[in-house]
């Protein structure tokens, strides 16, 4: 059992969960993720660690409710527990001095780039972050990122806060400004956003790294369910990634494979809500 120390809503349907996981916290590096199971029986789902505190033995997850398991997880309060937490999994982010590194976070991806910002700054980069949300209330982690970044550019789709438009628009601006001397773009967020970013950076020949989120089961390279095509080769995202060179990724295939269980995901969601309704009445 992994006790939850803190659970707060950061934005609609986006929850920050700090959980005790001593062993994981001790070894966490930026880019690592965990796989959790809320209860038994229950699905195993991967989540990136936003931060960790080795001393306190805690890790912090930022979770967006998209289906049954993320909803069950986000229903938990401090004092309750998560049944299984395994990690850290995946390869850590390659941290090097790119000169100027631009981090782009969309939605909960903003939490994913947070530890990267800290590590990139430490090795001497100028670090900019572009973070996006639908409206102002969806922009998360701005204050936290500002601690490690030279600049943070919030963006909203409706212009209610910061840059008026998508993160890709802001990134395009920066790339076009030659004085920025961007050495690398590192991004995490919804697949359509990461794909759009790969398109934007391509003509500029800037190294671009994306954090992929295929469906996973074990997270140890045992099942092959998380396979993605990168540079024409099959890779297992849980052990070879989850970060890859954006220009090599077959995004169409990733999007397609993510839809494998759409029908069942809907059934699980409806089931969860039906049960909650009947237990209320």
């Amino acid at each position, binding site marked *: 059992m992994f006790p939850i120390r803190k659970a707060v809503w950061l934005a609609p349907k986006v929850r920050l969960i700090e959980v005790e996981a001593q062993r994981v916290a001790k070894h966490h590096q930026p880019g690592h993720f965990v796989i959790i*199971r809320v209860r038994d*029986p229950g699905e195993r789902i991967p989540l990136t660690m936003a931060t960790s505190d080795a001393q306190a033995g805690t890790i912090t997850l930022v979770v967006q409710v998209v289906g049954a398991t993320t909803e069950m997880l986000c229903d938990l309060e401090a004092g309750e527990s998560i049944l299984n937490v395994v990690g850290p999994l995946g390869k850590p982010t390659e941290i090097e001095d790119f000169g100027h590194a631009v981090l782009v976070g969309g939605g909960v991806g903003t939490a994913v780039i947070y530890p990267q910002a800290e590590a990139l700054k430490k090795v001497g980069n100028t670090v900019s972050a572009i973070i996006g949300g639908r409206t102002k209330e969806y922009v998360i982690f701005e204050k936290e990122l500002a601690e490690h970044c030279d600049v943070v550019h919030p963006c909203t789709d409706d212009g209610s806060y910061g840059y008026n438009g998508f993160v890709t628009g802001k990134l395009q601006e920066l790339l076009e400004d030659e004085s920025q001397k961007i050495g690398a773009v590192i991004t995490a967020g919804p697949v359509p956003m990461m794909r759009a970013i790969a398109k934007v950076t391509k003509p500029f020949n800037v190294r671009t790294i994306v954090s992929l989120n295929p469906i996973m089961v074990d997270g140890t390279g045992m099942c092959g369910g998380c396979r993605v095509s990168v540079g024409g080769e099959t890779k297992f995202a849980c052990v070879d990634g989850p970060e890859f060179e954006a220009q090599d990724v077959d995004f169409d295939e990733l999007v397609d*494979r993510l839809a494998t269980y759409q029908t069942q995901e809907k059934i699980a969601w409806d*089931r969860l809500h039906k049960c909650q309704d009947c237990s209320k009445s």
Partner: protein
Amino acid sequence: MKPAERMKIDRQPMTEQDASARAKNFREVNQGYADEAATQEALRCLKCKDAKCVNGCPVGIDIAGFVGAVADGDLNKAANILLAANVLPGITGRVCPQETQCEQYCVRGKKGVSVGIGYLERFVADWARENREDLFEPPPPTGKKVAVVGSGPAGLTCAGELSKMGHAVTIFEALHKAGGVLVYGIPEFRLPNHIVEAEVDGLRRRGVDIVTDVVIGQTYTIPELLEEEGFHAVFVGNGAGLPVFQGIPGENLKGVYSANEFLTRVNLMGGYMFDAGETDTPIIRASQAVVVGGGNTAMDSVRTAKRLGANPATLIYRRSREEMPARVEEIKHAEEEGVIFRLLNNPIEILGDDKGWVRAVRCIKMELGEPDDSGRRRPVPVEGSEFELPCQVFIEAIGTGANPLLTQTTPGLEVNRWGNIIVDENNMTSIPGVFAGGDIVRGGATVILAMGDGKGSSVAMHEYLMNGK
């Protein structure tokens, strides 16, 4: 009873669930012997002086001894004999390939049918589990701490033996449940999970600490276990859990699974109960499924697909039936359940529809040519014989490789060119104090060989821990 009378008794059949019924459920196929059948079967044993059957058992069970005790109705004694040599008889009795091991050497097989050693082993083990308390005197502690990586048969056996010697043992398991292939791979209709759970609970009662959710190589490295976590020795039994894909076009279509993923979703995660609302892990139920391979994994996958509703559920294998490495009983059961065998065929491409789902697999006919390195005749494609088999789920069960997650993070650990850990005659690796056994050393092998390695290693580890050798 005189040998002549014993010779007159026919082999007692195993009670099985009816084939058409069981092809729709996940309950165990074999129902076990009734007491009377067990006694009769045991009486068939000739109690040979120079019992050849024992040579076929990798752990050297005193077969005539335990079978004789069953014939005498002394099940307590039978269980004592069995458990002295084999800590997981309820499991091996169900899954050992008896026909190539103990039963192959039984004299009664020379002129007729061998004694049902596996069935009797299972009978005694099930009786013991249900009727006996596991009486256990904790041995005096040695003060030595041992870490065991992986909770498959190799790790469980090694841990059990070491704890009997008084060492403090901790098993680290990557998944959320202990048992290895026994719980994530082998389906419930062959080996119910509760049997494995009972064995694991037995180890816990003996004081073995089983810690799930720890991936060695990620959560801890082996050098850390030895240098920081205070372990005096390590046994690595992390299995051969790396799925091998054929590398044919179409493998990333929706509906293509490795056997590992398919079976893990169904067995470990209980995916077959998703529709009933009892679990959250989805699995695709195809109306037509094709599996490629000829081993136990392939047989388990195709019978699982059948149970999830595929009709037909087809197995493609590039050699002929004689070369199939699966247990004979599983092949027979699969056939009875209506699995279609397409022998001497090989898939060359997986075809998808316009939505990215599998719609068919293109195959080519094979014929057997000259013998290859393994001594088996090499299958060669017959030109111009391609054809399509329609299916919505395609499962690759052509074998597994060594998972590099642990070996790559252990500096100085020597592996061969397939990534299997190299060990000496004491099962010690190139790192002093680190031992290994089971599939990670042998490549995909069997439960009993993994157990044999676990046991052999425990003896060598005890020697190392106590005398520094």
